[in-house]
């Protein structure tokens, strides 16, 4: 009985959904605030993401004629569910809900589901902007996904395990994967920006070009869920990067470990914000070229080095 209770607790509260929800809103706020500060502005107050979320929940939910209603209702939930499930396998400061050999693959798969849902949302919501946004999302997916996967495969091969927890734990000796595979980290970082559709890779939702991209026609609750799923995805992505490349919590389960983990996460978030602030958005064909001509070969080289030297 206690086991069940604690399992429920880990899933729902920490490090499960409740914690993720809070983290998602907090990270989103920090991101907006930091961006604003760099741009010479003040930025939103701390409760902003929460207010936005609640407001959207309480708004009318309409879809244009011709949109596929069931799918449009389902897709944001699929997207959210996928990232939430992915989060269960990623250790947070050492705590992990479930862990098994090969969970990295599952995580990677779950993290790419939202991209698919996003693309479908574009196609099914009966608006030209969302269709264009959707097809861009798909193109972008192909451009970043391969380098991202290869970059994450590096540490896995090095450690000889496809479990996030193990890879994270293997670095407790102090030697972060970052130091061994710096290129891999950079690639994973760039891939993450692409995955999160953040500036400068916010191509599928480029406001000035195609409205709000695939989400143009979504409103109210569905929009709130989309936003939430993207925010959670940001958190999960950052956790993953910290675990795989930055040594996670530094081993063991302790308060200092959790703090360390938190600090690392914030640093990655800061890096994401700064990158977003520094560059102009690329065009989809430029990103595709970059993905295939630069990132993918680099990832391949990194992987070869790992296999030949480390493996």
């Amino acid at each position: 009985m206690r086991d069940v209770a604690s399992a429920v607790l880990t899933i729902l509260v920490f490090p499960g959904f409740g914690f993720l929800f809070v983290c998602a809103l907090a990270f989103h706020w920090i991101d907006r605030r930091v961006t604003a500060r760099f741009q010479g502005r003040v930025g939103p107050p701390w409760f902003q993401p929460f207010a936005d979320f609640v407001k959207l929940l309480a708004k009318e939910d309409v879809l244009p004629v011709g949109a596929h209603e069931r799918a449009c209702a389902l897709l944001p939930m699929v997207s959210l569910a996928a990232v939430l499930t992915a989060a269960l396998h990623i250790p947070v400061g050492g705590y992990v809900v479930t862990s098994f050999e090969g969970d990295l693959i599952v995580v990677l798969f779950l993290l790419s589901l939202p991209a698919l849902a996003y693309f479908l949302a574009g196609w099914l919501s009966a608006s030209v902007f969302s269709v264009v946004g959707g097809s861009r999302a798909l193109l972008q997916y192909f451009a970043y996904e391969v380098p991202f996967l290869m970059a994450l495969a590096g540490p896995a091969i090095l450690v000889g395990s496809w479990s996030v927890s193990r890879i994270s734990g293997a670095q407790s000796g102090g030697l972060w994967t970052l130091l061994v595979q710096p290129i891999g980290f950079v690639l994973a970082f760039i891939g993450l920006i692409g995955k999160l559709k953040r500036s400068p890779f916010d191509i599928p939702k480029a406001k000035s070009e195609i409205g709000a991209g695939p989400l143009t026609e979504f409103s109210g609750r569905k929009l709130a869920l989309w936003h939430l799923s993207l925010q959670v995805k940001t958190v999960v992505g950052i956790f993953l990067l910290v675990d795989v490349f930055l040594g996670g919590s530094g081993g063991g389960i302790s308060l200092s470990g959790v703090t360390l983990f938190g600090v690392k996460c914030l640093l990655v978030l800061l890096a994401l914000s700064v990158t977003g602030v520094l560059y102009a958005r690329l065009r989809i064909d430029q990103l595709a070229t970059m993905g295939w001509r630069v990132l993918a070969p680099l990832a391949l080289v990194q992987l070869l080095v790992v296999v030949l030297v480390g493996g």
Partner: protein
Amino acid sequence: MSRRSSLAHLLPELVRTLFARRATVRFPSEPPVLAEAYRGRGVVHAELCVGCGLCVRDCPAFALELEREGRHRFRLVHFEDRCAYCGQCVDSCRQDAIALVSEFPRASPCRTAFTRVLVTHEASEE
């Protein structure tokens, strides 16, 4: 075109911005900063206004109306929602009776709030 280091040309400015004096004015918790010359709400010095209507004639937005009742009775009415805050009335008035003060006109949910009687000239000195 020199291709200096390709990374992050904005970085120095980013850092500068971070430590610079903040650019944001925190209106409404701070009062608005308006120039002295700002052309805001219209006011009329009633004792100077003679009801000549020069301001009405030159107003490009028909935002002033002079309602006459008899020779010595008039009301000068200002429609804030039409006014272009151009200051032409101030220039046209030979009595220096009308002015635009440094205070912006307030928003309102009701348009009737914008119709303001600037002068009611009831009796004459004679």
